[in-house]
């Protein structure tokens, strides 16, 4: 089961190549999205308890992008992301216990409680880091791709950023350098319609972000980010191209942010939203769409879904329990980890 990448916003067109994806793979995509959704919901629910004392940027409604992107990658490929990183962390295979421990500020967290929600990291599965400065991490990903090329490695690098990141000059600097050196990097723009409360059209006269690399020599493509199968297909093709040495690519996935920019709530009535967008987003919930597709084409049953829900819930419960049971960092450790010890040298 492998649908062709789709280009129309929210349109789904995936009759071809079904044989190339096994049921297991189709299910894996769905389950990863389900996991993200339920984790985010759990976070939103518990947020008022103040167990999480840091800003959270949720990705409910955007699961298709993280999952489709990460499942197209191999285990040694690397990903860089933003403060809106829960989905990416989970999709790339980050440990759920370490995630909750990080959110709760515990020493068992993926960054020992130092990074919090905005700075998730899981180098053991290739998530190299998430940063809270818009666009700042894009050139870092390009540099990693440079190292890969210089080393003759097969490693490919993906950097995921929002529609806001293309506002920053460093995005163009990064795209230009990647093009110049023909580096193995894929620029993934997750266009969720807003940068905080600012629409793309409030910041750009020309809103086809996928074209922003064109004049620098990086081809772009826009796809429906709410169709996880389409995202996967698009990424598989891009990954294959990049591995063949075709140079960097830019992909824009169209999706929608359901929750407020930061925090656990929704803000659907705020003036910056267009009610029609919310309506459309409801219709094209990536989780529902995938479920429908899987029911239609594979033997996905209610029982199986219920089983997966139970699994996810159990994992979340365990992760929360683990996090709650974990100690806070010792204040005496404040100065640790600023520098790595240098090799001693002569004199």
């Amino acid at each position, binding site marked *: 089961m492998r649908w062709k990448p789709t280009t129309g916003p929210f349109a789904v067109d995936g009759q071809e190549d079904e044989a190339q994806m096994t049921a297991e793979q189709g299910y894996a995509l769905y389950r990863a999205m389900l996991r993200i959704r339920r984790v985010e919901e759990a976070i939103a629910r518990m*947020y008022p308890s*103040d167990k*999480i*004392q*840091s*800003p*959270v940027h949720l990705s409910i409604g955007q699961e298709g992008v993280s999952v489709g992107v990460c499942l197209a990658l191999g285990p040694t490929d690397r990903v860089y992301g933003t403060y809106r990183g829960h989905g990416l962390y989970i999709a790339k295979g980050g440990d759920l216990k370490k995630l909750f421990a990080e959110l709760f*500020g*515990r*020493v068992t*967290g993926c960054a*020992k*409680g*130092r*990074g*919090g*929600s*905005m*700075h998730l990291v899981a180098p053991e599965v290739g998530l190299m880091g998430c*940063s*809270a*400065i*818009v*666009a700042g991490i894009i050139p870092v990903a390009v540099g990693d791709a440079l190292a890969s090329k210089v080393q003759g490695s097969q490693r490919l690098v993906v950097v995921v950023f929002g529609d*806001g*990141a293309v*506002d*920053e*000059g460093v995005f163009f600097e990064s795209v230009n350098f990647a093009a110049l050196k023909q580096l193995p990097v894929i620029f993934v723009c997750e266009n969720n319609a807003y*940068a*905080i*409360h*600012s629409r793309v059209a*409030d*910041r*750009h006269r020309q809103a086809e972000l996928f074209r922003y690399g064109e004049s620098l020599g990086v081809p772009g493509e826009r796809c429906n980010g709410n169709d996880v199968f389409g995202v996967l297909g698009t990424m598989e093709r891009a990954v294959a191209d990049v591995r063949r040495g075709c140079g960097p690519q830019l992909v824009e996935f169209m999706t929608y942010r359901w929750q407020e920019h*930061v*925090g*656990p709530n929704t803000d659907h009535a*705020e*003036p*910056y939203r267009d009610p029609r967008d919310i309506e459309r987003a409801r219709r094209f919930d990536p989780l529902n769409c995938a479920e429908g597709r899987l029911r239609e084409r594979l033997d996905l049953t209610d029982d199986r879904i219920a089983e997966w829900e139970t699994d996810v819930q159990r994992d979340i419960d365990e992760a929360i329990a683990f996090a709650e049971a974990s100690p*806070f*960092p*010792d*204040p005496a*450790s*404040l*100065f640790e980890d*600023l520098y790595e010890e240098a090799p001693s040298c002569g004199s």
Partner: protein
Amino acid sequence: MRLVTYRDALHAALSQAMEEDPTVCVMGIGVDDHKAVFGSTKDLVKRFGPHRVFDTPIAEGGMTGVAIGAALGGLKPVHIHIRCDFLYLALDQLLNLAAKWRSMFGGQMSVPLVVRAVVGRSWGQGAQHSQSLQSFMMHVPGIKVAMPTTAYDAQGLLLSAIADPNPVFLLEHRLLYELTGEVPDYCRAIPFGKTVVRREGDDVTLVANSYMAVEALRAADVLSGYGIQAEVVDPVSLVPMDEATILNSVRKTGRLVVVDTSWVTCGVSAEIAALVAEKAFDSLKAPVKRLGMQRTVCPVSKPLERAFYPHAGTIVAEVLDLLGEQRLDVQVPETATSFKGPF
């Protein structure tokens, strides 16, 4: 006089300046949205229109350049950043151009630009949403710098900044936004270059700015319970700085603890400590002391975050240490604050 929040004081100053001077415009990420930079720009776009109040792309470098050019072109832009940390991206524009423009071109033109930015201490803001760049703006000559502490300062200095023909950097603090203070009914500009004595005392001088002045006042309360009278001196205006008020205080008390919102190394606390060691050396009865953020990256986890920032408790401890008082019993309760995240 009226009692208003810091946020409302900023808002009142902006509104008044925009009413009085049609060249004043307000720009920056989110200045026209429903959150309105913690409320400080609320409804301005409705009142003054999108030509004068506008959102910008996320491009701190370029947009700062645009603000400089707009200032050269005859507008008076107030450019707002909800986190000071983003200003690293604007330093080339601010320090290579805005700060130098007038002098470098022989004094023919000025850049009447106001940059407002907010320090984001605590609630797990972490490494990249908690910084405080006043020392950078101070190091390089050409920009005026102030950190308003009270509603009165906020209102008066913002008005003054807008009226100033030079680039001005105003650094606000998120934890001050909810605090109330008295302001004149009709907003009045207050001049740059004044250090404010927030509390008088004879035993030790606490030089503390912005939110640290609030914590220093709490520390002074606690200390007075032990018979120690701390004078709290707030260098609201950092460039130009009213050195005399600081020096006079140290000449009286003979002891100095400086508390700044940023790191200590090459920071405001280094500057003021050095200043006193230069110019009030003979009055000093004890070594100078500096407090600021601890010398590491700002962590998110609460116990680390608490150990990272200076507060009334650490100030009290430092003063007691300086005075050679051994009082292990001193308990300074954490600041009660209604403040919570998520942002």
